[in-house]
């Protein structure tokens, strides 16, 4: 029995990291938004690792924040340890990572959702997507209630037909024993959507009281914690931090795994889904890096509320008895009591190449999706897509052009472009190496890159925008001043240089040139720079980076310029590839299937050659010209 219930502008299915961002974005853009979750107690749940950020993922969080998303602020409120990673490397790969108190993180996000105007939450399983002429018309829940709406964002995470497995033990549940969503896949298939089956996994949780920390190395947080959110004040963020611990697997561990590998459902074929290569289970690592004597194991607290410790680096789907042997072979875990077993989870997701860059389905107007449902892995990847999908679902209702961020603007752009353009058959994980222009896409300048966009969309308020403009202005003025301030080779200067092991001056130079020296920085030159005005650390950081890496930045910018040329050659949505002369058949098929939005994107589709692109370029030139001519007539 179905019946029609309330209408909404935007319906979001799933309240994980993607769904939360999607729902908040839509509601904050003043759209009447409904967020469905299978359990009100699992909002923004972290079913795997207890941290946010890390290499390249930290960038995503910063970008989410710069656009007006919630993840950064939420982790700032609920972190229990924080660290800037890779500080010995270049600024492009500095990445922030914070350990979260899982429950606090979830509760805090729930509080935000529950107090956001225009946002309604409901515990219910959505079982059907309703359409009319390939347009979204509503959703139906398990109880038969129909909610008419204008756009839908699917953020079902790992819940669709989920199956948790370790050894021979199989549970037909979502993560943490939560109810799986077993109906929606059929509805999606009816709409002609192509589904994949992926798998991922999580390690065991071990009782803190059973761990011997004296055999491990303690891992402290940073002395001064840097916030994720550009809106969080650093001084308000500092607190006492909780340690993590480092230990290692050994030959015994590997021997146990090898001896039991035939009992792993991944290896004996019980699991059909494809797992992430870059977030491998310990079984995978032992097989793949057969000559490695040991692998790192980080012991991380799940929160302040619990004794459960997360065993990072040892996710597994081996049987329970093997898990005991395996974990207990690791120094410090000899007497480990496993609170929750490690397990692998299999779930339905989509082939993301069915999506446009806006994260709207090409085949169903008004249907958007984000997160693990799109074949990615990770909280941050999910949140980033959720934010974009939410924004664009809202913009669809408002009849605005979608927000599309390209590869040269943000990791978010790289993430989405990779998902919708490159064929992947495993959960997609963000990595530094995927961003071609990473020197420009640093975590420290996410606000300078994206906050204007957030403001234009309507997710960034006037005050924050003005603050950004002022920051930009200060950076520019101060950089110019440094470049035009001469420094003579006087005694005071030479002494300062000597003090920092920098070679003395033969002739005069500028402050900017001194800052460029690796051993010097803006801060160190204070005594010889008399006309300096008070500037924030954020501004100084940008000045240092801009000057020190000037040449590299310029070269990267010129690479971006080349990239943009092809990216800006848009392909009209109504192009008929059948009428483009002399395209190869394979290229024609791929182009028809994937409907790339620009020449640049088309060039990244496998099976489309440079020659095909050239044909297309000329065809477009002609087409463009003809259409313009028609307009004139």
């Amino acid at each position, binding site marked *: 029995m179905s019946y029609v219930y309330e209408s909404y502008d935007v319906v979001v299915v799933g309240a994980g990291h993607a769904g939360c961002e999607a729902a908040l974005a839509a509601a904050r853009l003043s759209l009447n938004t409904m967020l469905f979750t299978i359990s009100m107690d699992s909002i923004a749940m972290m079913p795997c690792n207890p941290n946010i950020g890390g*290499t390249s993922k930290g960038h995503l969080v910063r970008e989410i924040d710069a656009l007006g998303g919630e993840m950064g602020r939420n982790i700032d409120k609920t972190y229990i340890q924080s660290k800037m990673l890779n500080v*010995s*490397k*270049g600024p*492009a*790969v500095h990445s922030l990572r914070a350990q979260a108190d899982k429950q606090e993180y979830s509760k805090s996000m729930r509080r935000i959702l529950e107090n956001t105007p225009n946002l309604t939450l409901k515990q219910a399983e959505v079982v059907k997507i309703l359409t009319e002429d390939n347009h979204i018309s509503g959703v139906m829940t398990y109880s038969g209630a129909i909610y008419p709406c204008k756009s839908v964002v699917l953020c079902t995470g790992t819940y669709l037909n989920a199956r948790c497995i370790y050894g021979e033990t199989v549970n037909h549940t979502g993560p943490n024993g939560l109810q799986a969503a077993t109906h929606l896949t059929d509805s999606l298939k009816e709409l002609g959507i192509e589904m994949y089956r992926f798998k991922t996994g999580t390690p065991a949780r071990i009782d803190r009281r059973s761990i011997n920390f004296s055999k491990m190395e303690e891992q402290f947080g940073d002395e001064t914690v840097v916030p994720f959110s550009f809106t969080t004040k650093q001084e308000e963020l500092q607190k006492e931090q909780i340690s993590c611990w480092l230990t290692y697997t050994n030959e015994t561990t590997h021997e146990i795994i090898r001896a039991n590998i035939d009992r792993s459902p991944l290896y004996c074929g019980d699991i059909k889904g494809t797992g992430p290569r*870059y977030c491998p289970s310990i079984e995978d690592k032992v097989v793949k*890096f057969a000559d*490695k004597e040991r*692998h*790192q194991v980080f012991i991380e607290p799940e929160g302040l509320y619990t004794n459960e410790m997360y065993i990072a680096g040892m996710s597994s789907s081996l049987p329970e008895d093997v898990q005991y042997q395996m974990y207990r072979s690791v120094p410090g875990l000899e007497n480990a009591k496993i609170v929750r077993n490690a397990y692998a989870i299999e779930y339905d997701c989509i082939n993301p190449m069915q999506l446009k860059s806006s994260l709207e389905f090409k085949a169903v107007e008004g249907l958007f999706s984000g997160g693990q449902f799109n074949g990615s892995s990770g909280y941050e990847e999910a949140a980033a897509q959720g934010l974009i999908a939410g924004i664009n679902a809202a913009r669809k209702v408002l009849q605005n052009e979608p927000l599309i961020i390209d590869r040269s603007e943000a990791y978010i752009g790289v993430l989405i472009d990779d998902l919708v353009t490159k064929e992947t058959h495993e959960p997609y994980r963000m*990595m*530094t*190496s995927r961003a*071609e222009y*990473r*020197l420009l896409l640093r975590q420290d300048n996410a606000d300078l890159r994206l906050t204007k966009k957030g403001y234009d969309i309507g997710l960034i308020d006037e005050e924050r925008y003005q603050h950004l403009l002022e920051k930009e202005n200060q950076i520019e003025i101060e950089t110019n001043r440094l470049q035009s301030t001469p420094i003579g080779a006087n005694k005071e200067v030479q002494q300062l240089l000597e003090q920092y092991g920098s070679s003395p001056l033969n002739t005069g130079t500028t402050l900017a040139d001194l800052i460029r020296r*690796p051993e010097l920085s803006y801060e160190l030159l204070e005594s010889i720079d008399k006309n300096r005005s008070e500037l924030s650390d954020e501004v100084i950081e940008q000045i240092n980076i801009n000057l020190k*890496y000037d*040449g*590299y930045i310029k*070269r*990267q910018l010129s*690479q971006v*310029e*080349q990239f943009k*040329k*092809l990216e*800006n*050659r848009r392909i009209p949505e109504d192009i008929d590839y059948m009428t483009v*002369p*002399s395209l190869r058949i394979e290229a024609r098929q791929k182009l028809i299937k994937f409907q790339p939005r620009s020449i640049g994107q088309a*060039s990244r589709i496998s099976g489309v050659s*440079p*020659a095909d*692109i*050239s*044909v297309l*370029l*000329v065809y477009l*030139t*002609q087409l463009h*010209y*003809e259409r*313009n001519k028609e307009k004139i007539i």
Partner: protein
Amino acid sequence: MITDTIAAIATGLSNAGISKIRISGDHAVEIIDRIYKSRTGNKVLSEQLSHTIHYGFITDGDHIIDEVMVIIMRAPATYTREDIVEIDCHGGIVVTRNILETVLKYGARIAEPGEFTKRAFLNGRIDLSQAEAVSDIITAKNELALQNSLNQLRGKERQIIIELREKILRDIAFVEAALDDPEHISLEGFDEDLQKHINEETNSIEQLLRESDNGKILKEGIKTVILGKPNAGKSSLLNTLVGEERAIVTDIAGTTRDTVEETINLNGIMLNVIDTAGIRDTEDIIEKIGVEKAIKIASQADLIIYVLDSSTELDENDEVILGLIKDKKSLLLLNKSDLEPKITSEEIKKMTDHAIISISIKENIGLNDLEKAIKNMFFEGKLSFNEDIYITNERHKEAFKQSLESLRLVNQSIVAGMPEDFYSIDLMSAYETLGKIIGENIEEDLVNMIFKEFCMGK
């Protein structure tokens, strides 16, 4: 959309007392500002009205290159609908080339053949119907497009470039993998390895560059082929022109069995002179190959100098040669005028329309007349050389240079102790630039191809 600024010699490198260098693009005026000096030194061209002409000098720093007239034309009322600057300079290859190179040095890039027209087309200046056959050309060229640009490279070079790119990519992949998985992939000792690789790669590219330079000079000069029967004095002529013993000169007919090439600068005119085996019906296999080659080269020549020994009778071999040069730009040299003549210019004149000059290479008589004759032909516009090839090479050369610079920058990063993640930026540039040479990098290539049908600088 099109942002970079292009430049080319618009008049062809050959004849005329004036040559024109054309610059088009957003930075055209900016670039001329950097290299133009007025007589008083006060005039700034960017402040001048559109469609005006200005007297002054092209300079590179303190060095004055030439006295010129500069025409400023601002968008959109120009051929390309972009800002255009034209520099009229004194003709002559060296000066014209110098000015072009200065323009490139100060921010323009060399235009592709037909690129001005392409821009005119893309900017809506030219009606598409004016390039009606465009679509057909594309269709026909789809398969050939890549090959076309590839053919200009010798197979060996292409292979070297492919291997270079593979090596560079391997290093990029290694750095990137280590960044993402520092636990399992260590960068220890990588700096030394990378420096070694860069060194090897640099050597290979420099080698290619040298070869492309050689190639360029050969192709750039006026391809001048010396023909004649054995022992007519062809090699002596070459040696005299070059001023050194390059070809082996003996009294034994048939000494030059292959071809010998030399570049000669004849008062600013580059001649690429090819001495050939004497043409005669021969049984000697090696000499026969040489003869065949000579005939083949002659068919591709811009200018043929036919050397006759005036002290011997004409025979059927001369008839063959006269047949060969019938439709070519040629000069006839009656050599050995110091000896008793068996043939006279009057006799020859009946058999050919080409100019005839009497000389004695041995006694150094008449060589001035030869030089004068060549110069006249050149300046009357009867001779010019293949500009397309010149450009192709220039593009390749430019790409080689850019990739060398990128590799140098990688090395600089290593020496400066930069973190490894910085290496990829320039490694990637080197990889992509090399890709352009072999057509593996997508640019607006095919559109270029079409407009290559147009002439350079047009």
